[in-house]
Structures are given as structure tokens and as C-alpha cells.
């Protein structure tokens, strides 16, 4: 029995390709990141349409590469009023709940706004 047969080479190639992929394509640009108190809480692909819950105080919806907060326990509901966002780097912020939802920015896109 030969270990280093034809199919083994293919197998190794697949493993190596996967590992390479892991190293060089880690920064998938289409991610939504949720931070609580500055710490990363969850990462969701922008393509996965669904309703997500942040603990028991906030819920947000992902639809067609856009995000919006649909429910929050905060008093002013500024995060809900922000509405849909689809620009990378510009977050929805809920200060009372110390929560920030942001679409991970690609290098060529805007980081912040002066107003």
C-alpha cells in the first residue's frame, strides 16, 4: 500500500489550498460586526438575511446587504431611528446599551464623516 498515491496528492493540494485561503483571505469584506462596550460580540455575514438578537436588549435585521435595528430597550430609540445602513464604516450606535453595529469597511471605502 502506497501512502503517497495519486489521490493523496490531490488531498494534500486541497488541504494546502484551504490553509492558504485561510491565511490570505481572512478579511472577507462583507461582514457585520457587533460590539458591546468596545468588545467584539458577534460577526455575521452581510449576505445572511435574518433577524438577530444581541443578548436580550437589542434586535437587528439583515436584509439585502443592509442592516437596521428593529428593537431596543434604550429610552430614545436613536438606534432604531437611524434606519437602514449599508455604508461600511459608519455604525449604528446605541449608547445606553453600549452597542455598536458596523459593516466592516473595505480599504477603499469611507471610514468616518465630518459634519
Amino acid at each position, binding site marked *: *500500500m502506497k*501512502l*503517497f498515491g495519486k489521490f493523496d496528492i490531490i488531498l494534500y493540494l486541497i488541504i*494546502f489550498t484551504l*490553509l492558504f485561503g*485561510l*491565511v490570505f483571505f*481572512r*478579511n472577507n469584506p462583507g461582514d457585520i460586526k457587533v*460590539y458591546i*462596550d*468596545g468588545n467584539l460580540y458577534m460577526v455575521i455575514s452581510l449576505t445572511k438575511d435574518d433577524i438577530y438578537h444581541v443578548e436580550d436588549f437589542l434586535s437587528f435585521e439583515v436584509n439585502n446587504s443592509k442592516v437596521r435595528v428593529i428593537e431596543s430597550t434604550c429610552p430614545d430609540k436613536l438606534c432604531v431611528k437611524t*434606519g437602514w*445602513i449599508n*455604508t461600511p*464604516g*459608519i*455604525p449604528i*450606535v446605541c*449608547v445606553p446599551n453600549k452597542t*455598536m453595529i*458596523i459593516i466592516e469597511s473595505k*480599504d*477603499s*471605502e*469611507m*471610514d*468616518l*464623516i*465630518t*459634519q
Partner: protein
Amino acid sequence: MRKTNRKNVKQITFFAILMFVAIGIFVFLYFKNKPIEYYSRTEYLLGTYVTIKVASKDNSPTYLADAAFREIKRVDDKYSHTDDSIVGKINKAGKEGLEIDEETAFILSSAKKIAEITDGAFDPTIYPLTALWGFDDIESEKTIPSDTEIEDIINKVNYENIIFDENNPSFVRLLNGSEIDLSGIAKGYAVDSALAIIKSLDEKATGYIDAGGDIGIIGPKYGERPWIIGIRNPRGDSELDVVEYIYLYDGSVATSGDYENYFIENGIRYHHLFDSETGFPSRSGVISSTVVSSSTMMADAFATAAFVLGKKPGITFLPRNGALAFLVLEDFSWYKSPGFEVYQAQ
């Protein structure tokens, strides 16, 4: 049979070692190439949302952000417009005068200097006028005052009434009933001061501080790329709507616009940026003014001044003071200080 087995064991061991080495190399590469993770936090301070985004190779970014937020909170508490704050005390002392600390003397003299440079377009004594129109607080009722009311107040608005003692630069008097307000300029100062704190703790830290659109850069993105900053469309439906991008590796930018705080009566927009000569919201034809400078305090004050002065007789004072402006005018045309293009290329 036994021979084959031994050969198999040898081969399996060989490939197992090979696999471990390969995985080891990849794990090493993975962590070595791992980009610096930015830490970001937003708090409500200085009457706006303040976001600090920071990363460092040598220090905990949480530690740097904590230190910066503490500093911003300190400045916010110190210069907010209350009766028992230092600003309240200076106003109360009036022409009697008051001995003030070094920091307050620095901020107040900077404010006066900017007022001189801009010929009063930025004026730290404008507060009574702002309050008369109801722009001192979100809760205040906003109305158009009568001409006599404006006339009474406008005589008190003059930065020349701020007098520093010739022999003692930390002794200040306010003549002719003038009142000062430093909350505006303190916002930029707080950002500058927090930037200095981060830099003193970690020279190589990168990131930015954004206090409601007054932005100070800690260092380039990942240490090598500029931060891409959108200038808000003054008539856009959403704050995400931008008219232009600028690219900053360092320095500061601030914007003043008539969309921030205003009311509309009989189809006329009354905003919070006043012309100290007329006592009315400035009608210079500018609806948004963005200024890039080395200091956030300067950028903020110059943005206000440029908004009030408009295109003519020229905001020529800006380049001479190390600041460049980008104005959006009523007809949606733009004006850029010569040389502003340097911030528009990556």
C-alpha cells in the same frame, strides 16, 4: 507482511511530521500577518457622540481609549456652561477680573486670537446672542427676537472686551457686560488634549477621535494608509450622504453647517451660526464649511469663521494660519482653498 507494516509505519510517521510542520508554518503565518485589530468605543460627551478608534502594537488599546475618554470628560466637565464652572465664574467676575488657571488662559487667549484673525467671525463672546435665539439648549424655545432685544445684546458681543492683564497673563477681565462661552472651542481642545494623552502613552498608536464630526487623527490606518473621511451633504437626507471625500494621515478636520441646529419660520431657515455684526444667523451663502488644520481646536473655530465669512472678501486668513477650507454654497457649488487638493488624493 511484517515488512510492509514497518514500511507503512515509517511512511505514516514521515507524513505526520510533514503535516505538523506544514500546519505549524501556516499557524505562524496566520498570527504573524494578523492585522492590528482596532478597538472602538462611543460615549456621549461634549454634547455629542464621541468615538475613539485606536490600535497599538505595544499597548492595550482599551487602556489608551480609557485614558483619552477620561481626559475628554475632564475637559467637558470643566468647560460646560454652568454657573459654578470656571466660565461661569469669569462671567460673574466681569470687569472686576479673575485669576484663572493656565489651561483656561490658554484656551481663552486662543479663542481671542482666532477672533482677531477672523475679525470677529468667530467670537467667544457670542453666547448671549445664541441664548437669545434659543440655540443654547435643545430644550429651549427657538424664536426670532425683536430688533430691540437683538440691539441690546449685540453691543455686548465683542471679543475685544476680553482683557488679559498686561503684567499677569492669567488675570482676565470682561468689559461692557460681555459674556464668554468656551463650550464650542473646548470640544476641539478636548480632542487635541486626548490625542496628546494617547501620543504620550504610545507614540506609535494609530486611529482617530471623532467628536460629532470634529475629527483628530491619532495615526494613519494600520500605520500606513489614510483615513477616508466623507464631508456630509448639507442637504442630504441621511448623514451617510456625502459630497466629497478627504484623506488624512494626520491632523484634524471639522465642519460647521446650517443643518446641525436650526428652525424654519415662513420658509426661512434660522440656524445657530450667528453674524456678530447683524445679530442674525449668518447669510454668507455658505451652507457647510469644512476646515483641515493641524489642531482640532483651530479647525473647529476656523470652520465656524469660514461659514460666517463666506467666499468673499475671502477666507484668505486660513492658509496663512495653516488651515484649508472646503465650502459648500447655497447653489451647491463648491469653493476650495488653493492647495486643498492635497487632502483629496490618497
